[in-house]
C-alpha cells in the first residue's frame, strides 16, 4: 500500500512543483516596493482620517497636478512606534511622517540621523517659512538653541509645521448666552446659568477611549499657564516641577471648581462618561443643558455633525470667547498645538512636497476647508470663528504646548487618569498628587 502511495504521491508532487515553478518564473517575481531615491514618488504617513484626510487630499491635489509626483498616502495611527521599530531594525522608513512628541525620542532620532533638517529640505525657501509661520512654532525662547517640543535641536529644525489649533476657548450658544464675556476666571464662575435658561454653567466630556482624560488635561493646562506662568508650566512638563508643589496643587483645586457637581451638566458622572465630541451637545438642546464648553478650535465640526438639522453656523449660532484671565500677569500665555511633518528620507520628491506644504497657497486650502488654523500667520479665514482664533494665536506672547502630550507616555497616562480620579473623588486630591510625584520620579529617568 505504502509503495504505490508513495510513488503516486511523489509523481504528483513533482508535477505540481514543476508547474508552480513555471508560473512563478513567468510572472517575473513581483513584490518589492518600487521607490528608491525617488523624484517621482513619495510615501507619506499621517494620523489624519475622515474630514482631516479629505482636507489634506485637497491640499495635495494642486501639487500632484503641477509636479506629476505620486503621493502614496497611508493613514497610520501607530506611526511613532512603527518608526521606532524601523529605525532600530534598519528597515525602510516612509519619506515623510509626523515627528515624535517625546523629547527623548526627538534627540535620539536626530543623533541617529533618522530625522533630516528642514534647512536642507526647504533649501532657499527655508527663511520664508520661518518668517511666515507663527514664531512660537519655530523659534526657541530667546537665549536657547534647543526646543525639542518644536523639534529644534542644535539650532536646526527637524519638523515642518503645517496646522495649528488653539485650545482653551470657551464656546457658547449665541442664542442662549447673550451676556458679555467675563473678564476674569472668578467672574466666569459667578455667572448664574438659570439667568439664561440653562441648567448648569459648564458642559464637560472627558471620555475618549484609550486617551480618556485629555480634555480635562486641556482645562487644567489652561488654568496653570495663566495662573502660575510659563516658567512653572514648562518646568512641569519637563518633570522639574512637582505635582505636590503649591502651584500645581492650586491648579488642580481651581480645575475642580469647573467640574463640581454643581457647575457641570449632569454631575461628575456625566462629565466622566461622556465622549468629548458629544460633550457640547447640551449647548444646543432645548432647554439648554449648559452655558459653556471649554474646547479647542476643532470642536466646531462636532457641533455641526451632531445637529445637521439645526444647520449651525459659526458666528451666528455659536461663538467663543478667549479663556478668561486668571492672573493678569500671565495673560499672554495661550495653549495651542500643531500638526507637523518630518522628513525621514532625503529624496528630491520629498523635498518638493515639503516645500509645497510650507507655502501660503497650500495652507490656504486647509484654511478654506475649515476646522483648523494653518501655521502661516497671514492666511485669510472666512469663518468668523477661525478668524478670531487666528488673531488670538497672532497676539499670543507664548504659544504653549499641551502639557500631557509632551510628557513621557507613562507620566501622561498617570496625569490624565489623576484628573479623572479627582473629578470622581475630589477628596483624593492629596493622595493623587503624591502618587503623581512618584510616577514623575520614575518616568523621567532613562533606566
Amino acid at each position, binding site marked *: *500500500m*505504502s509503495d504505490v*502511495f*508513495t510513488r503516486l*504521491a511523489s509523481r504528483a508532487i513533482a508535477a505540481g512543483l514543476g508547474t508552480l515553478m513555471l508560473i512563478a518564473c513567468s510572472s517575473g517575481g513581483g*513584490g*518589492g*516596493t518600487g*521607490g528608491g531615491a525617488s523624484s517621482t514618488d513619495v*510615501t507619506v504617513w499621517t*494620523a*489624519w*482620517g*475622515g*474630514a*482631516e*484626510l479629505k482636507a489634506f487630499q485637497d491640499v495635495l491635489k494642486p501639487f500632484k497636478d503641477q509636479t506629476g509626483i505620486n503621493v*502614496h498616502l*497611508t*493613514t*497610520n*495611527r*501607530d506611526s511613532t*512606534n*512603527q518608526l521606532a*521599530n*524601523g529605525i*532600530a*531594525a*534598519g*528597515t*525602510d*522608513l*516612509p519619506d515623510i511622517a509626523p515627528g515624535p512628541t517625546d523629547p527623548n525620542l526627538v534627540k535620539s532620532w536626530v543623533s541617529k540621523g533618522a530625522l533630516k533638517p528642514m534647512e536642507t529640505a526647504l533649501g532657499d525657501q527655508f527663511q520664508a517659512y520661518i518668517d511666515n509661520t507663527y514664531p512660537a512654532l519655530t523659534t526657541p525662547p530667546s537665549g536657547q538653541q534647543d526646543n525639542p517640543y518644536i523639534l529644534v535641536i542644535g539650532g536646526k529644525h527637524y519638523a515642518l509645521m503645517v496646522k495649528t489649533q488653539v485650545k482653551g476657548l470657551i464656546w457658547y450658544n449665541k442664542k442662549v448666552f447673550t451676556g458679555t464675556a467675563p473678564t476674569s476666571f472668578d467672574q466666569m464662575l459667578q455667572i448664574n446659568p438659570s439667568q439664561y435658561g440653562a441648567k448648569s454653567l459648564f458642559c464637560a466630556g472627558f471620555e*475618549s*477611549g484609550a486617551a480618556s482624560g485629555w480634555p480635562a488635561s486641556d482645562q487644567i493646562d489652561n488654568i496653570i499657564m495663566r495662573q502660575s506662568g510659563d516658567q512653572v508650566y514648562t518646568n512641569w512638563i519637563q518633570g522639574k516641577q512637582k505635582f505636590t508643589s503649591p502651584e500645581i496643587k492650586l491648579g488642580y483645586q481651581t480645575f475642580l471648581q469647573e467640574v463640581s457637581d454643581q457647575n457641570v451638566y449632569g454631575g461628575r458622572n456625566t462629565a466622566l462618561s461622556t*465622549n*468629548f*465630541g*458629544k460633550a457640547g*451637545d447640551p449647548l444646543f438642546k432645548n432647554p439648554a443643558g449648559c452655558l459653556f464648553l471649554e474646547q479647542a478650535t*476643532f470642536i466646531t*465640526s*462636532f457641533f455641526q*455633525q*451632531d*445637529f*445637521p*438639522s439645526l444647520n449651525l453656523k459659526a458666528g451666528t449660532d455659536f461663538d467663543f470667547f478667549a479663556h478668561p484671565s486668571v492672573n493678569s500677569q500671565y495673560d499672554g500665555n495661550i495653549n495651542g498645538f500643531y500638526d507637523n511633518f518630518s522628513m525621514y528620507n532625503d529624496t528630491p520628491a520629498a523635498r518638493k512636497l515639503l516645500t509645497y506644504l510650507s507655502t501660503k497657497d497650500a495652507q490656504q486650502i486647509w484654511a478654506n476647508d475649515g476646522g483648523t488654523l494653518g501655521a502661516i500667520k497671514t492666511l485669510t479665514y472666512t469663518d468668523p470663528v477661525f478668524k478670531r482664533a487666528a488673531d488670538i494665536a497672532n497676539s499670543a506672547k507664548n504659544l504653549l504646548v499641551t502639557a500631557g502630550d509632551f510628557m513621557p507616555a507613562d507620566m501622561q497616562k498617570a496625569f490624565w487618569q489623576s484628573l479623572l480620579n479627582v473629578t470622581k473623588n475630589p477628596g483624593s486630591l492629596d493622595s493623587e498628587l503624591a502618587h503623581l510625584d512618584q510616577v514623575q520620579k520614575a518616568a523621567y529617568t532613562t533606566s
Partner: protein
Amino acid sequence: MSAEATRPRESAVGKGVSALDNLGYRLQRLPLHLVIIIFCAIWVVPTIGMIINSFRSLQDMGNAGWWTTLFPPHGFTLASYQAVLEIDGVPQSILSSILITIPATVIQLTIATMGAYAFAWMRFPGRNIFFIVIVALMVVPIQMTLIPVLQLFHLLGIQGTIVAVWLAHSGYGLPFEVFLLRNYLGGLPREIFESAEVDGAGHAVRFLRIAVPMTIPAIASLVIFVFLGIWNDLLVALTFLGTSQFRPFTVMIAQLVTSFGGGWQFLTAAAVLQMALPLAVFIFLQRYFVRGITSGSVKG
C-alpha cells in the same frame, strides 16, 4: 442525534398514547430550549445593537437607543456603508486581506500538524522541554518580538513583502496550534496506527492517510480561528508591510475616523463588513463538526 434515543417510539398501535408521550417529551425539553434561547439572546443582542446602529444617522444615535428603530419612524440610512465603500482602494484592500489570510492560514496549519504529530506520537529526549517552551511562548507580548524579526526580514530582503506577513503570522500562531493539535492527535487510538504499521505503512502514510483525516474537526476549528485572527489583525500588517502600498482592509478603515474620533459612526458599518467573511467561513465549516466522522474509532 444522540438525543433521539430517549424519544418515545411511534407505532401504528397506540398513536393516541404516544401523542401524549410526545407532548410530555417536548415539555420535558422545554427548559433546555429556554436556557439555550435566553443564552443566545444575551449573546446576540449587543451585536444586533451595533448592526442596527450601522444603518442609522449620527444624530439619531445621540438621541435614542437602537431599539427605537423597531418602531416607526425607523430612520434607516445607508450613509455609513457608503462612506466605507467610498474610500479609495477599498475593494483592493479586501482582496489584499484575502491574499494575506489564506496562504498564512495554510502555511501555519500544515507546519503545526506535522509538528504536533511528532510531539504526540514520537518519543525523543527533550520532548517535554521543547513542548513546554514552545507553548509557554504564547505568553510573549508581541511588541517585544517586532524588532528582532524586522531585522531578520530585512536581512533576508523580504521586509515589506507579503511573504514577510505570512511568515510572521505563522510564527506567532504556531504555538497555540501545536498545543491544540497535539492534544487532539494524542487522543487518537493507538490500535489504528499499530495495525497500519503491521501492514507495512511508514510514518508518512500513517500521518497522511490516518492521522490527518481523523483530525479534521480540530483542523476545521483551527482554520476558523486562525483565519479570523489574521483577517482582523492590524499590528503585524502595519509592521511587516512597512512602506509597501499593499494594504489590507484593517489598515484602510483607519481612514474613516479623524484623529479626534470624528466619524466613528462609520466604523459600525466597517465592523459589520469586516465580520462578514470570518462568519461565512465559520458557517461553511460547520459541516465538519458532525458526529460520525470519527465515531467508532475513538475509544471511550
